Every structure is written in structure tokens, then in C-alpha cells.
């Protein structure tokens, strides 16, 4: 082929090769979870067997074990409950705060907004030691209420940051008109701003919920009984008995838990990214 021909063909082939390689590398662990979920133990644990194919017929044993003989369903319930309560706390505190910073506080609000964003950068691994004492003193240790208390400390800052941007994009004239019609400022916020902000609020709901399902450090630190676990800790820590890993059920649990969360997160991803990159992309 001529040099010119290579040059023309090069980019397309390079793109395809890049995409194919990365899709395989990045998605492989999930494909591997899927295979392990349906393989019989003898098949999984025979070193000579080709691990890419089913050497014995597929089985539902791992799923049965997971759903009927472990606390997996209970952990899902705990996580859902914590998720719902944390979402409510986050909305109650972050929605008004974001509106205040976007509209009512001027320059002072701008600075507070940045300060709030910076608190989001403070990681759980810096705070888990003192917080473990706070949780113990409050008597919340080993209950899901410990994480209900602590999770809003990282969901609120990012939610305020996301919603601030959202509220700023609403035309001011809308509230002004409502206030001319006799509503107070707060009345205009409740009756005009909140109803037209449902998509922003929904983003915060999804974001908060996925963060709750993804958290690991606090749940590991505060909660030890098996029955009180969140799903993110229960699966990797409590599906292991002593040194015995039930890989089939373990992988099934990872897959079944990850995929819905991933689908949900993926739908709203562009908005989260907008939150992360505010300022840098313009």
C-alpha cells in the first residue's frame, strides 16, 4: 500500500483497535463474573479445564445459595433503606442551601459555594477514625443509623454544587413574576423553582443513591454484625467464610448488584460530569 493510503487508513484502524482493546480490558471482570455465576463448582475448581467455556452444564446453585442461604437479600434491604433516608436528608438540606447560594447571597455565596465544593475533596479515609468514636459515643455503632448519619456529609456538598449550577440557569424573571403576583421569595422558591427543577433534583437523588451503594470505608468501620451490613461490605467480607471463598455466589452477587447501579448511574452520568468539570470546561 502507498504511504498516502496508510495515512488515510491509519486513523480508522487505530480507533477501532483502541476501542476494541479497551472494551475487552475494562468489561472483562464483569464478563468473568457472569461466567462464574453459572458454572458448577467442579468446573470452576478444576485447574485443567478451559475457563472460558462451560465444561459441565450451567447451574443455578450459586444463585440459590446466594438468595436463600446468605444474608444477601437482607443487605440489599439495608442498603435500599439507608439510600432512601440519606436521599431525603440530602434533599431537605441541599436544595434550600443551593438555592440560597445561587440567588440570595451574592459574592459571599460564591465563596461559600467553592468552600462547599472543597469539602467534597476530603476523603473518608481522613475522617473514619474520629467518626468511629463519634458514632460509638452516640450509640449508633453496629447499626445502619451510623451510616445514615455520616453519608450526608459527602452527599450534601456535591448535591449543593450540582444544584447551584442548575438554579443559576433558571431565568430570574420567573421568580420576579411570581413575586409580583404576591408570593414571597420563599413561596416563589417552593411553588415555582422546585417544580421546574425536577430534573436537577432527580439527578441529585440518583447521584446520592449510587454513592450510598458504592461506599465501603465507613460501612466497614462502623458496622460489624453480619445482619446489619450494607451490600458493598457484606458481599466482599461476609460471603467469605474463614478462608473459603464461595466464588460462584460471590461473583453472582457482584454482578447482580453492580449492573442495576451501573445502568442507573450511566443514564445520569453526563450531568455528574458537568458537575465535576464546572469551571474547567467553558
Amino acid at each position, binding site marked *: 500500500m502507498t504511504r498516502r493510503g496508510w495515512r488515510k487508513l491509519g486513523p480508522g484502524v487505530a480507533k477501532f483497535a483502541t476501542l476494541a482493546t*479497551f472494551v475487552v480490558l475494562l468489561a472483562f471482570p464483569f464478563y468473568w463474573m457472569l461466567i462464574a455465576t453459572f458454572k458448577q463448582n467442579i468446573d*470452576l475448581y478444576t485447574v485443567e479445564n478451559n475457563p472460558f467455556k462451560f465444561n459441565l452444564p450451567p447451574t443455578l446453585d450459586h444463585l440459590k445459595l446466594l438468595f436463600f442461604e446468605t444474608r444477601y437479600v437482607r443487605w440489599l434491604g439495608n442498603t435500599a433503606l439507608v439510600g432512601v433516608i440519606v436521599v431525603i436528608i440530602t434533599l431537605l438540606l441541599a436544595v434550600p442551601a443551593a438555592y*440560597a447560594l445561587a440567588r*440570595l*447571597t451574592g459574592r459571599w455565596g460564591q465563596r461559600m459555594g467553592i468552600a462547599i465544593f472543597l469539602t467534597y475533596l476530603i476523603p473518608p479515609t481522613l475522617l473514619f477514625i474520629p467518626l468511629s468514636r463519634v458514632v460509638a459515643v452516640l450509640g449508633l455503632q453496629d447499626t445502619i443509623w451510623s451510616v445514615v448519619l455520616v453519608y450526608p456529609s459527602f452527599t450534601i456538598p456535591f448535591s449543593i454544587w450540582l444544584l447551584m449550577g442548575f438554579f443559576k440557569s433558571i431565568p430570574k424573571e420567573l421568580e420576579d413574576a411570581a413575586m409580583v403576583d404576591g408570593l414571597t421569595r420563599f413561596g416563589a422558591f417552593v411553588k415555582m423553582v422546585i417544580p421546574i427543577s425536577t430534573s436537577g433534583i432527580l439527578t441529585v437523588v440518583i447521584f446520592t443513591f449510587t454513592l450510598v451503594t458504592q461506599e465501603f470505608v465507613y460501612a466497614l468501620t462502623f458496622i460489624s454484625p453480619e445482619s446489619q451490613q450494607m451490600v458493598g461490605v457484606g458481599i466482599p467480607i461476609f460471603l467469605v467464610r474463614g478462608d473459603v471463598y464461595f466464588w460462584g455466589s460471590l461473583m453472582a452477587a457482584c454482578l447482580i448488584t453492580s449492573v442495576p447501579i451501573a445502568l442507573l448511574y450511566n443514564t445520569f452520568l453526563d450531568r455528574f460530569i458537568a458537575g*465535576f468539570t464546572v469551571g474547567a470546561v467553558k
Partner: protein
Amino acid sequence: MAVENRRLGFAMFFPAAAYIVLLIGGPLILAVMYAFSDARIGNPGYHYVGLENFRSILQSPSFRAALRNSVVFTVVAQIVVIVCSTMLSIALEKPFRGRKFTRFLILLPWVAPISLGAIGWKWILDSIYSVITWVLIWLHVYKPYGAPMWLGEPKLAMASVILVHCWRLIPFSTVIMLAGLTAIPKDIPEAASIDGAGFWRILFRINIPMMAPIISVAVLFGTIFTFTDMTVVYILTAGGPFDSTQTLPSLAFATGIQGSDLAAGAAMSLFLIPVLVLIAYFMLRAAHRAEVT
């Protein structure tokens, strides 16, 4: 009106601010206080011991290994992630059939809970049933039962931890860079193309330099996520073998929570702060620059 607004603003902002101050500010101060005390779980009461904890942890080989690992893991992972996600974001930029689904597959490691992704890797890297081992034996790289244990040898375990961090971060950086790419004005590369510049030339002379600000944002977040993470290490290796994969957060957990030595654990985690402050500084500078232009 303005005064009224300010009052209402304060009232609406106060509850959230109070929550954050009580649950982030308070514990932060408490962490510093613990670091200068001899507090242990089950031993309440506060005794100031000055720099004693810092002196003893700085002499501990585990701590030095953790400090070094934290820096090495973070730096190596960021370099790999920047290169890979720059390539990937450019490959993904233009629309093609199946782009949405491709993007979902690429994003899976980031959007799925990390503790579950890490346990998936633990199975892939298993000492006996690892698929990587099987493939290498099949390719005759190793004899049966002659392959190394991926998580059992210090160097390989370190590489595995870095690998999982990269696996998790590449999707995140890629979407951030995609957002940046779409913000690049299209007329500049188009004009260059009309002037006769080829794909690769436009890529290296125009697109990548113009992506610099967005790449820096991805790196700042990536640094925080790797440097402060303990989930990957805790699940894959729990810091072993022989502290070879221990990082600051995982050692702080092992010391402060599992070992009941709150004071030493708190002192270790304080070593995260200089890096966080540096990142915050660069983040603010990036935001400020964007505001000015």
C-alpha cells in the same frame, strides 16, 4: 429587600452548613487532637503527648513502606490513566453505530461499586484458579503449577493494585476528557485540515494541547481517588504480602481501627492532608482561570 434576601439566604443555607461543619469540620479537628494524644479504643480520656506518635510512626518500616507505596501507586496510575484515557476519548469522540453501548461497557468499572469490582479482580488474580495463569500456561509461558501467585509476591501484588486503580479510573478520566473535547471549538482543527494537516498532526499539535486544562482536572480528581483509597488494597491484598502493598489509608485502618491505636492511626491519616491541600490549590486555580477567560 436585599437585607430580607440575605436573611432568608442565611436561614436556607445554615442547616446544610451546620451538618457539614459538625460531621466534617468537627472530626477533622478531632483527628488532629487524637494524633497528639495516646488515645486507644476502650481507653477514654485525653492525654497530650506532643509529637510522640509522629516520632514513632516515622521510625516504623511499615509506615515508610505505606508512604512510599501511596506516592508510587498514585503517580504510576495517573501516568497510565492519562495516556489510556486520552487515546480512548479521542477514539470515542465522533459518533458511530453502537457508541452508546460501547460507552456503557467502558464505563462499567467506574459506575459499579468499587468493592465489588475489586473482588472480581481477586477472582481473576486467584492464586490457583486465575484465568491469567491459565492463559499463560496455555501459551506455554509457564509450566503447569509453575506460574507465580499474582497477589502473593510483593512486586506482582503492587502491580496488581496499580492495575485495578487504572481499571477503575480510565473510564472516569475518559468521560471527563470527552466533555472537554466537545468544548474545543471545531473550526480550529477544521481549518488546519483544510490547510493540509493530517489526522495525527492535528491530534498532537492541536487537540492534545487544547485538552491540557481538562486533562489536568482529570488528573487532580484521579490523584485524590487513588491517594486516599483503601478499598482496592484492603480487598485485594489487605496490605500484604509483608506490607508490600500497604498504603497510608490502609495502614491507618489496620492501626487505628483493627489495632485499636486511634492516636497512631489518626497521625498516619494526617499525612494525606498536604496532598489534599495541594490539589485544592490547583483546583481553585483552574476554576479561577476559567472564570477570568
